[in-house]
């Protein structure tokens, strides 16, 4: 069975020949360069690694590795706007902490192992909608550089790959507002200045909608999955109350997800870290088809609970624990964990196996081999 066919069956809640696997197909299921180089060393592969995301130090996974780890997904993303440097560059940066600026005018601190955090939020001191509107660095969503050659790239990929294609669109509304306003201020705005919180998020969404419209006009008919993200939960709870989420964030999600789905038949993949199940009914109402990363170590995220309660309505994409199992388990423990996960999640389809988080430097390469080889062998449907 072809990879793409396998993916589509699973996404339509049917059982294909085996559980589909994703490694590096999305911006949330990738691998940091040190971990990647260790993996390549173990496999005896000696090629220079290319960084695809400098801030998180994520690599562009090479074809030979995709084949070896049996991934069923190829990822594709928008080009950067004309005013930013090219995305792919050799990993030369070795300073412990770098400061970089993103296209929204936000600053980031980042380290060599890919840890990064937003800093100096540009909207922190603003108090009125007029100030927000007058901000100088709102990105230009119509910048043609973003879409240049995109269709050709997808068609070329499809001509020599049989994998499903995930289009990494992003479209973070809440997380983008958090980065631009500052974490604490953004949270307090929900209570102290909800109108401003709404203005900032709506401005961000308006930009995303133009990007989504232009991008999907070019490749919406060619991709199988569109990925969007917004972290709304922490380890043991949602970030904000259900009342605040439903009043202030959910309506925008409904609008944006509906807008995207009107422009492509691709399944909608939504990434929300942490204890996401508190809002899962709402996410489904807003239109998601796929939940990622299925952070099984968070509160109310046990695979049994999720599969039983939501298994027929959503595809789970992720689930292999990166907080304890992958970094600190033995290869045997990883294999056992993957088997347990497959036992629970695989029946009836609706499951794409992937790691919960981008793989970070502490993960031993032997554990990655155990993970993906077990997934291949044990994931076969009878």
């Amino acid at each position: 069975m072809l990879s793409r066919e396998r993916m589509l069956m699973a996404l339509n809640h049917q059982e294909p020949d085996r559980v589909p696997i994703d490694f590096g197909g999305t911006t949330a299921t990738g691998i940091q360069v040190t971990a990647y180089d260790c993996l390549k060393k173990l496999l005896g592969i000696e090629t220079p690694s290319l960084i695809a995301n400098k801030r998180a130090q994520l690599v562009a996974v090479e074809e030979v590795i995709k084949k070896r780890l049996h991934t069923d997904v190829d990822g594709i993303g928008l080009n950067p706007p004309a005013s930013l440097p090219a995305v792919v560059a050799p990993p030369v940066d070795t300073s412990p902490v770098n400061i970089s600026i993103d296209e929204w005018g936000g600053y980031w601190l980042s380290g060599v192992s890919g840890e990064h955090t937003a800093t100096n939020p540009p909207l922190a001191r603003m108090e009125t909608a007029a100030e927000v509107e007058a901000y100088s660095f709102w990105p230009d969503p119509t910048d043609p550089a973003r879409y240049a050659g995109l269709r050709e790239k997808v068609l070329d990929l499809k001509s020599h790959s049989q994998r499903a294609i995930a289009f990494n669109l992003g479209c973070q509304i809440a997380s983008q507002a958090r980065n631009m306003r500052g974490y604490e201020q953004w949270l307090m705005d929900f209570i102290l200045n909800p109108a401003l919180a709404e203005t900032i998020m709506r401005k961000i969404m308006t930009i995303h909608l133009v990007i989504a419209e232009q991008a999907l006009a070019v490749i919406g008919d060619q991709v199988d999955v569109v990925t969007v993200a917004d972290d709304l939960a922490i380890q043991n709870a949602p970030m904000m109350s259900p009342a605040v989420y439903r009043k202030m964030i959910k309506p925008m999600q409904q609008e944006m997800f509906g807008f995207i789905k009107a422009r492509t038949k691709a399944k909608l993949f939504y990434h929300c870290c942490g204890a996401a199940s508190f809002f899962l009914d709402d996410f489904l109402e807003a239109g998601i088809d796929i939940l990622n990363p299925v952070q099984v170590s968070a509160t109310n995220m046990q695979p049994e609970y999720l599969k039983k309660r939501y298994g027929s309505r959503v595809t789970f994409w992720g689930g292999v624990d990166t907080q304890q199992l992958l970094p600190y388990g033995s290869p045997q423990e990883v294999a056992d964990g993957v088997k347990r996960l497959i036992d629970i999640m695989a029946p009836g389809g609706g499951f794409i196996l992937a790691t919960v988080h981008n793989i970070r430097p502490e993960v031993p390469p032997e554990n990655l081999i155990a993970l993906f080889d077990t997934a291949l062998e044990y994931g076969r449907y009878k």
Partner: protein
Amino acid sequence: MGTLDEIKAALINLDIPQVQCKIHQGLAEGLSPSAILEKSLIAGMNTIGSRFKEGDFFMPEVLVAAKAMHTGLDILKPLLTAVENRVKGTVAIGTIKGDLHDIGKNLVIMMLEGAGFEVVDLGVDVPPDKFITAIETHHPRVVGLSVLLTSVMPQLQTTIQQLEPYRRELYIVIGGAPITQQYADKIGADGYAPDAASAVDKVRELIARN
């Protein structure tokens, strides 16, 4: 409802102007600043902490309550006597070396301050040396180590080892998304808390030991 209760209620209702207004009213009525601090603000933050632990309040409510508390403290602090100003104890806290995340640490700081502790915030990416300097300067009863990244967790143990010469004078508490009680026991921390409100309970419990 007496004014002390009204101040506490205003705090729990996250009504910052009302907290200020009622504190001024209470002082005009002759209430002592220390009574307002203990029975209104600290008691109110206790309630906020309980409701956070119970999943009734979330991060925004805790942050706004802490802001209300600080607004009240700004009024009360100059009026407290030297004895009354003596704090319940000092806690030095930081995100350990190699980790840049701070929201969890900041929530713990707000809850500790809300409970009347003096807190020395060492920031993020804090090497063991910086903890040691803080210990020698501020003599904290408790040192808090925060972490989010699993890759940095071994640095917790390294930091704890380097603080070994000071262990008779202080307790070490750790916290952060990937941490468990089991892990805290394994690396020899004195305490662990799963959330910011529980961290205050843990600090109180440790300080009460002697």
